[in-house]
Each structure stands twice: as C-alpha cells, then as structure tokens.
C-alpha cells in the first residue's frame, strides 16, 4: 500500500491542473472508503467490541448489575472449579457437541450422497431436506419438538404401539439429551447443501477409473469421496462445532428457561444466562463467557492443527 503510494506521488505532482498537495486524492478515497464502511464499523465497535471489552473487565469483578463492580481478581474463575452446576453444564455441553456434531454431519453427508444421485424430482427433495434448517432455530419448532416428545405425544404413541412406552422424554433426565441431539441432527440442511456442492466437484473420472480397477462402493467412498471431500468436511466440522457450543434457544424453550429436568439440558450458555440475568452474577457470567471463548478458540486451533494430517486440497502434493 505505502509502496504504491510513494510511486504514485511524483507522477501526480507533475501532472498539470493538480495544484493540491500530493496524496490528497488518495486520502479522499480512503476517507470515502471508511465512510462507506462506517455503518459496519460503528456497529462493530459499539455493539461488539465495546461490550466485549467491558465483559473482559467485568469477568474479574463481582458485579450484580445494581452496584458498581468490585475487583475480585481471579475469584470468578476459581469458583467455576468448585461449582457443581457449572461442571455439570460443561459436561452436558461437551456431550452435546462431541456426540451431536458427528451424528449431524454423518446424516448431512448421507443425505447429500443420496441427493447426488441422478433421479427426477431431485430439486424438490433437496428443498424438502433443507427446510428444517430454515425453521429449526425458531421458537416454534422447539415448542413443537417438546409437544412431540411429551407424555402421550407422537413419539410416545409410536413407542406404545411397539410395546415400549417411555412416558415421554421431556420429563426424564436420561432422555432429554437424545431429544436435544435429535433436534440438532434434524437441522442438517446447511451442512448438507455444502456437502452436496462438494460432491458435485469430484471428477467422475476418478470413480470410473476406480470401477475399472474393481473398487466397490465402500472402497470408492473411503478412498475417493472422503479425501476429495475433506476440505468441505473440515469446513462443516469447524462451523458446526462452534455453532453447537452456543446452543441456547432450543434448550431455553424446551426447559422453560431452567435447564431442567434436573439440569440435564442446562447447557453452558443457558447456565451463563441464569447466572447473569436471574442470579445477578454478571461478573461470574462474564468470566464464563470468556472461558467459553477460550475453549472454542483452543478447539478450533487444534482442529486446524490436525487438519494438516487429513485434509487434502486439490493441486496439493501429498
């Protein structure tokens, strides 16, 4: 940037009808650029960066929303290790992320492969499978989901008809996690569409060549589809992992904001909300938020690190 600028300057200065100081035009351009950026910049600074800095400060304070925060150093962070509800919420969230995300991606990939086959009405199916993702994050779906899994709800009736009544999943702490994971898996549309796009990029010659060499479908999947798809897989894995750490709305609705029954759906963000806005421990809640940021950051970094071993970009030497 600065190199071009210095190269520009003498040329401009020598040009006729350019009485102003050198670089004025460029500065005007820069100003215009920032002016156009300003709505986003303002939003970012005031609505994201500012509150984030404030929360970083609050994480080291005892702050109840009503009185001025008082500095407590690392107390909020050390308290987490002895807070049974915190540890339970971390455990519940980890289970949800590390079990739910792979299942969701597997489902997305399986359906994407089905939709990649040539048959009529394929566009219709694609839309149909994508719809849950559009409505999935909404409040109404969480309510419908709860109604489906409630005592004598649709799922319970099906279980009754096969002779395995469970009395509803919603009130049973052992069954709420499967229910939440199913809700997440059902919204596989976004990764599915990305997988589908990835699948269409794989050259057909590879499969033809493999067929000639006598490879079966499993072998083709393992040795062609997966490696060729690995950048897309990596992208989806990253996004979905980060996304599912932040699960909030569905658990909030289904448990009525409590994370119940018996804290079985008390996800990290839900507990954070409870501590901050119900119990007025805004300092502790801020500390929790920063721990989450760090954990997600570390996990993301780890994924990037391991990705070198299993993600193959085309044109890259092995």
């Amino acid at each position: 940037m600065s190199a071009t600028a210095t190269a520009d300057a003498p040329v401009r200065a020598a040009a006729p009808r350019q009485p102003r100081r050198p670089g004025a035009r460029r500065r005007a351009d820069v100003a215009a650029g920032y002016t156009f950026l300003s709505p986003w910049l303002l939003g970012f600074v005031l609505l994201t960066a500012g509150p984030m800095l404030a929360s970083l400060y609050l994480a080291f304070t005892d702050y109840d929303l009503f009185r001025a925060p008082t500095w407590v150093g690392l107390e909020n962070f050390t308290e987490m290790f002895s807070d049974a509800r915190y540890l339970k919420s971390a455990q519940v969230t980890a289970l949800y992320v590390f079990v739910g995300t792979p299942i969701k991606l597997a489902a997305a990939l399986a359906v994407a492969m089905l939709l990649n086959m040539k048959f009529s009405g394929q566009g219709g199916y694609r839309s149909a499978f994508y719809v849950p993702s559009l409505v999935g994050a909404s409040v109404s779906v969480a309510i419908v989901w709860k109604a489906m899994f409630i005592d004598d709800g649709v799922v319970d009736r099906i279980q009754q008809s096969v002779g395995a009544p469970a009395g509803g999943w919603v009130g049973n702490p052992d069954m709420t996690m499967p229910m939440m994971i199913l809700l997440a898996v059902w919204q596989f549309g976004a990764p599915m569409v990305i997988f589908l796009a990835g699948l269409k990029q794989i050259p057909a010659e590879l499969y033809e060549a493999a067929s000639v060499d006598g490879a079966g479908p499993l072998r083709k999947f393992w040795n062609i589809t997966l490696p060729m798809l690995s950048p897309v897989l990596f992208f989806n894995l990253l996004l979905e992992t980060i996304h599912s750490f932040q699960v909030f709305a569905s658990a909030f609705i289904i448990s009525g904001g409590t994370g119940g029954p018996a804290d079985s759906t008390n996800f990290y963000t839900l507990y954070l909300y409870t501590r901050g806005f119900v119990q007025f421990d805004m300092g502790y809640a801020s500390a929790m938020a920063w721990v989450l940021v760090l954990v997600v950051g570390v996990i993301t970094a780890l994924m990037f690190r391991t990705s070198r071993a299993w993600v193959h970009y085309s044109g890259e030497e092995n």
Partner: protein
Amino acid sequence: MRIERRAVAGRPARRTAAGVAVVSAAALALTACSGGTGESAGFADELDPEEEITLSLAWWGDDDRANKYEEAVALFEEQNPNIQVDTNWIAFDDYWPARNTEAASGSLPDVLQMDLSYLRQYGATGQLADLSEAFDTNLDVSGFDEQLLAAGAIDGAQYGIPTSTNTLALFYNADVLDQVGVEPPAEGYTWDDYAAFVEEVHEAGSGEDPAIFGSGDYTTTFWFFCQWLIQQGTEPFTDEGELGFTEEQMAEFLELGADARETGVFFPIEKTKQLEPLGAFTVSEAASEMSWDNFLAGYVAETEQDIRMLPMPSGDNGPQMFWKPSMLLSASANTEHPAAAAALIDFLVNAPEVGTIFGTSKGNPAVAAQRDAMEVEPGSVDEQVVAFEEDVAELVTEPAPIPVEGFGAIEAEYKRLGEELQYGNVTVDEFVTQWFAFAESNVGQS
C-alpha cells in the same frame, strides 16, 4: 477542518476504533455506577396540566391483565390529557431480566409493577424512589391499612405501594374428590392430616385413567416453607435482612414429604415437568394444590370444575396466615416526571373505576374504595375470593415476611433443588447443605 483531515490521515481506523472502544467501555462502566443515586426530589411538586408528559409503565402478566391495564391507563389519560402513558408488559419470568438490564443502565420505566421478592433488591440499591415524599400531595394513602403499607417500605423508605393482598390457600377440586370418593380435609386440619389426605386420594385414584393424585410435592415450594416456619414461631427473615431459620428446620419441613416421595404418592415430577406451564391441578389430575388465593380465577378457567378453597394446614396455634402485599407499584429513582408518576400510582391504587376493571385478578384490592367498587356477581370467582379473604381474616395473625435481598434467587434455587430431590438425585441433607451454601453467597450482599 484541520482536525478532520488529521483524523483521516495517519492510521485512522485503528486509532479511532480503539479510542471509541475505550470510551464506550468506560461509558458502560459509568452508567453501571450511576444506577443508584437515590435522588427522588419533585414527587410533591404540583402537576402542571399544561406540560406535555410521557410516562412509561411496565407490568408482568397475561393478555387478560394487559387488557385491564390498558383500560385503566386509557381512563387515566382521559383525566390527564397532557399525560401519555407508554405501556410495556411481559410474562413474570421474562420481566425481571428485562428490568435488571434497565436497572443496570439507570433506565427503569417511570412506573413499574414490583414484586415483594425483588423489592429489597431494587430498593436497597437505590433504583426506586421513596414515594413517601408524595404522600398527601400527589399520592393519597389514607385508604391503606398501616401494616399493609409498611410492607412496601424498607427502613422507612416507601419503595412500593401494594395494590392488593394475597394469602396462601389450599385449593381442592370438589368434582375430582367426588369422582374418587374422598372427603376434603376438615376444618383445622394439620400438616399430618393433609399428608394423610394426599395419600388417601392417591390410593383411591390410582385405578383411574389418568391416575388421580392428592397433590404434588408441596414441601418443595419456598413460600410454603415460610408459612410453616411462622407456625413454628420462627420469623423466616430477620429485620437485618438475614435468614432467620436453621438447616435443621428446613430438613424437618422437607421430611414431611419423605414417605410420600419414596412411595410415589405425590404427582410424579416427570409428568410435572412435561405439563409446564400447566400443572397437575390445572389438568385435574391432582385433587388439591396450595397456592396464592388470586389463582382461583385461573384454576376455574383451566379446569372448568368446582374449585374450592381452605385455609392452609394448621400448626400448633392454627394456620397463622399472613397477607402478602402483591403487585406493588414503584417509581424509578431516575424518573424525569416524579409528580406525574406519583399521580399515576395514585390513580391505579385509589380510583374506584380501576377496582371495577381489575376485580380480584391481582388479589383483593388494598384500598376499600376499590374493593367496594368491584361488581361482585353472586357465584362469581371474585365473590369466592372476597368471601375467602373475609373468612380467613381472623386466621391471618402474622405480618408478612419481608423477603431478603436475593429472595428471587434463593426461592428459585429451592425450587430447583426440590426437583432434584423428587428425581432422587439429592437427599434431604444434600438439599439443605447445597441450599444454604447458595444462600450464603446470594442473600443480602449489601
């Protein structure tokens, strides 16, 4: 001009961005600090009928209450053409997070509905105005019972004006009891009698489809524990805003339900969780439930059955009930129109028309003029509530416990641990230990 140019030159984005960030962080911290100034001058000023004023008013409740408030507010605006009232309402659970965030930035609504559980929290931290300044000028409190009015004051500062009173009651569903052939508890029944009744209903109703239960686990509601404590001669909270009871007492109360929990006599928690926001009683699968007496209207509407009320179970000296001042109205300490805010509260608590509009839906109106203005139809829910409160008036012998700061949180924790107890995840002893540990870090942080 020059300054502007200099800002654009150099490395504009990073420097200004960092600057703005620091300023905004500082601003956040500042507004957080300025929450409680405690200044509340001007409540006794004369209302200027020429000044155009906009007041904000917030309450919690349902559609029904919203319609009633809107009607009352419209009347107020009619009588005070220079005042416009902007209304805002939401359900109880969501009401407090919203108010809490407003309180943090010192922007509470001018007038807001306040619950006894939160009065100390907001009052002690300087969020609310001392309304006693407006007494005899913009706010007439001559119609109030002194003790009731005092329930809205902390250390002599009147942070809230009770609009109505509630007392605890035992509701039973006469139709359901007929169905299973069990008699309701007799007058003067004790906690043990009630436990026996709950078991009897369970035995008689287990063959029904769906099974009929006597009640849910009533030992896991904090207010019932408070009522029981008062019967034991213990004030739940001290004047200093601390807990007035011991771990042993809490364990003793929880043990009242131990047998029933073990043998599955109570309405199962698994079902309770699934019914929310309804309850076992509202779907007619439990024959009785303890609650506040203003719930009657809701129960009758939901069950469409014959719902009746009894006083709470007795201790050694009778039920020893108390009036809980409910639906208090408070004014923000930061209101720009103190006189108008006081006038709005005055109208809502005193105007007979408002009594006609609300009936007993918020409890029994605090001021006689509003009670008398209720058009109580024979056989109506309102009549039943009024009759109940008249009947139990002589049983109400105790002042209402003034909740400690942090009451909302310890009450919620009691409920949460109550669920864990019913799922069998904690024992009574663990419940008590955990609750007290929680209370220690949440009660009276001042």
